[in-house]
């Protein structure tokens, strides 16, 4: 059966028109009575790098493990490269080892009883690749991750970062249809994590392979992927390119989870001259992004807008323009590359980040400006 169905989600979002390479339809997973993934559908294009992002317990790893065949869903279909590997209705469940994928595990899963070479060669040997070819490909891929010198080391001698490199080399060496990465960097320290992120990106450029990357770290997801799926409590909350999700979060949850945002609640108050909705919060009127619409309010009838902490401006001179109010610096925290301020204004308190090139003092009276296009209406739930 052919399953090359053009996907709405990928088709428009990605630069070039793309065909679904991995297709997940209405995936539902339950452990006993507890449903952990509910009707999740998405697709991954050929050579596309997709991230599943969400807090722990949101079902992202379970979804990935279903694609790998390590968990059995109770409903839905999974199609990889035109082959239905799972279908609850048609009772198809292709075992993991016949799905032609690779996976990088959170715990690295480096086999302690093998050398670095044997670990990387494992997949090739199960594929019965000729031994000279195995040697060539293993040393090639080990060179790419900078582990060529340690090729004959027992795996137990490796540090965490080195094990991670071997795990990556092992995943890429067998040239699978797609690479699944399950929180691969979460066991590394912060500095190494940033470094390995770059290495993964480098490998993605070297091998043109689809990847699905599961993470709870929004920074990783933004840095590595073409497209991000934000998951929450077993469902997809939002899908989009990293910057779209960052700039236009659909809900309060996404705004909070990705980056840092201020959530301002107010009642609707017509529209602005620029064509955006306006909300009222006490005496304050806040103009929202032109072209946006207020969405579902919270139980008290308040509509929420999200303002990323990096977008509000503070200035000393008073200029008369919309969304500008007098404010006072309450607290300043120097974080090194950025400065975090808490300012008090008529709408309450607001957090914002600036660069340390121009500093304001605590207690200083300033003007706060929220650019209207940065005030994004978000769904309360």
């Amino acid at each position, binding site marked *: *059966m*052919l399953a090359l169905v053009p996907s709405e989600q990928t088709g428009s979002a990605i630069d070039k028109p793309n065909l679904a390479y991995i297709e997940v339809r209405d995936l539902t997973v*339950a452990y*006993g009575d507890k449903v952990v993934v509910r009707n999740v559908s998405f697709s991954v294009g050929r050579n596309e790098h997709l991230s599943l992002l969400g807090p722990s317990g949101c079902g992202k790893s379970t979804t990935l493990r279903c694609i*790998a*065949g*390590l968990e*059995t869903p*109770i409903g839905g279909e999974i199609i990889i490269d*035109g*082959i*239905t*590997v799972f*279908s*609850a209705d*048609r*009772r*198809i*469940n*292709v*075992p*993991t*080892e*016949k*799905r*032609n*994928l*690779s*996976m990088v*595990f*959170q*715990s*690295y*899963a480096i*086999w*302690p*009883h093998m050398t670095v070479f044997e670990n990387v060669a*494992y*997949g090739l040997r*199960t*594929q019965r690749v000729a031994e000279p070819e195995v040697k060539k490909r293993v040393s090639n891929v080990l060179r790419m991750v900078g582990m060529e010198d340690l090729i004959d080391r*027992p795996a137990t001698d490796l540090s965490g970062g080195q094990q991670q490199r071997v795990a990556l080399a*092992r995943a890429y060496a*067998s040239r699978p249809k797609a690479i*699944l990465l399950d929180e691969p960097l979460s066991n590394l320290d912060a500095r190494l994590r940033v470094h390995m992120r770059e290495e993964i990106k480098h490998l993605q450029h070297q091998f043109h392979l689809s990847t699905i990357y599961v993470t709870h770290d929004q920074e990783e997801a933004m840095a590595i992927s073409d497209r991000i799926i934000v998951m929450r409590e077993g469902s997809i909350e939002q899908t989009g390119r990293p910057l779209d999700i960052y700039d236009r979060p659909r809900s309060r949850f996404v705004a909070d989870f990705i980056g840092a945002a201020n959530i301002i609640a107010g009642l609707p108050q017509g529209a602005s001259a620029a064509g955006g909705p306006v909300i009222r919060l006490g005496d304050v009127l806040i103009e929202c992004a032109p072209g946006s619409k207020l969405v579902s309010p919270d139980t008290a009838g308040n509509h929420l807008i999200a303002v990323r902490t990096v977008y509000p401006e503070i200035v000393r001179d008073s200029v008369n323009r919309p969304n500008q109010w007098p404010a006072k610096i309450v607290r300043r925290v120097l974080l090194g590359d950025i400065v975090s301020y808490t300012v008090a204004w008529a709408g309450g308190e607001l957090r914002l980040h600036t660069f340390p090139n121009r500093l304001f003092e605590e207690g200083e009276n300033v003007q706060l400006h929220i650019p209207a296009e940065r005030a994004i209406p978000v769904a309360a739930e």
Partner: protein
Amino acid sequence: MSTIASENPPEGFARPFRLGVRAEVWIPSVLLIGALGYPLFLILTSAFNVGDPEQFPAREYGFDNFVKLAGHLDWLWNTLIVAGGGTALGISIGVSLAWIIHRTTMPGRRWFDLLIAIPYPLGPLVGALAWSQLGAPRDGLINRAFTAVTGIQAPLIDIYTPLGIIFTEAVFEAPVAVLIIGAAMQRMDPALEECSTIFGSGKLRTAWKVTLPLMMPAILSAALFMFTSMIGSFAIPTILGTSSRFYVSTNAMYVLLQGYPPNYPLAAALGLVLIVITGVAVWLVQRVLRGRSYAVISGKNYRPRQVDMGWLTWVLLAYATIYVMLSLVLPMGTLLLASFQSSNAIGFDFASWTLRNYKYVMFDFPTTRQAIVNSLILGVGTGTLGVTFATLIAIATHRSKNGGGQMLEQLTMLPQAFPRLIFAVGFLWMILALPINLYGTLLAVLLAYVIVFLPLAYRGMSGVVVQIDKALEEAARVSGASPMRVLRTVILPLLRPGLIATWALLFMVSVREISASLFLSGTNTQVLGPAIFSFWDSGGMPRVSALAVVQALIILVALTVVRITADRGARV
């Protein structure tokens, strides 16, 4: 391109959702319930049997047997004294030796670690035989030496007393306590003690307030293990107690079962009481341990903080040396010596020493020759079957903690609460009740061994299985390896050190076993333990000793093999 044939749903599809409990959990559970439950049922019904004593299961029920038992309360009382006293002494030896080996700077700790482990696999039968020749009041070697040196005729020690039995039990069970408590000591984070010292507590206060409470779970489980094993201990009280008519429950049971006519119901009633006693002990220990978190003792191995005891080090060294003398050097030396004699009296005239006894037991006498061969077969069989079952069960329980895994684990550990002699009696009755005739076959003994040693095997394998991250296996499957290939290239190699160690342990305990095989091995299927025992019963110390030495040598070879593979495993 077409899909994988959809009309052919792969095996295992959605299986967990239909059954609720996985097949790998319920199949062994059902088997274990049958293999443990039916013998237990037969003991239970027989204990209340007031009709035909050879009817299994019984038809007429009443409390007569328990009324009769009330006239023999001394059997139970003696059992409790021996088991209680033996446990108290054994735990004291175990705690002190574990502490000396793991927590002090005593020289030669590594050697003692090796030597102290040996008496356990050698077993109580070898120990009792050796000590009956060492500590007999008149012609025991120790008393002869005492008289020769001091000229005093009165014996220094008498091993044929309750105290002698307690002493022998404790000495030969203590290695288990050293092992369990020592392992807990190695898993304790030294920071916990360092912290106490920082808050101003001295060495003693730290030991009392921090170390001992943390060790308590390990000490209690070691004590429970010893207590149940001494309640069911047969060889030591029989060999050391029978001549002075000191009866504990096990040798009383033996007499009841071997008498003519055999009194099955009374023996079953006695066995039932013993099962209740061990059951209560297990329940008590679990109750005390509940609520005590093991979290402070992590899975990680630490290098425990070692205390320099100054001049006391020499006292400790002397203490450890005395233990090794009493448990290993003197008993083995005595057996060797006795095995070279041509009469029961041990003589020191080298010229009259002979190897005839070895020739006799190993080649000339068909019964013992066959017993040696049978024991080797049983050792290999129990090791192989036991390790296989234990591994499968360990994987199943580990993989389905919630889906009945815990129940399976409890079932697997259950045989530990039954004294082996009593279980074997129930098992024998079950075999006689089965339509297939297994009585008197090696297979019957093998099955009984596998069941009674399953807790031991499970303990060994579950520790290893838990350490294997599931992702290691999943990584292989994602790499395209079939389940069989995953087993061959990933799981088995990772389990290998644990498999070898557990296999060898099962081999050793099967070769030395007597309680479980005493009634099960028929005249044509003699095995070493019962053969040594019946040899002893009919006299002839030199030949008994020779056979015991052969048994000890088999066990020592197995022990050496484990040690070598363990060392090799550590190096890789």
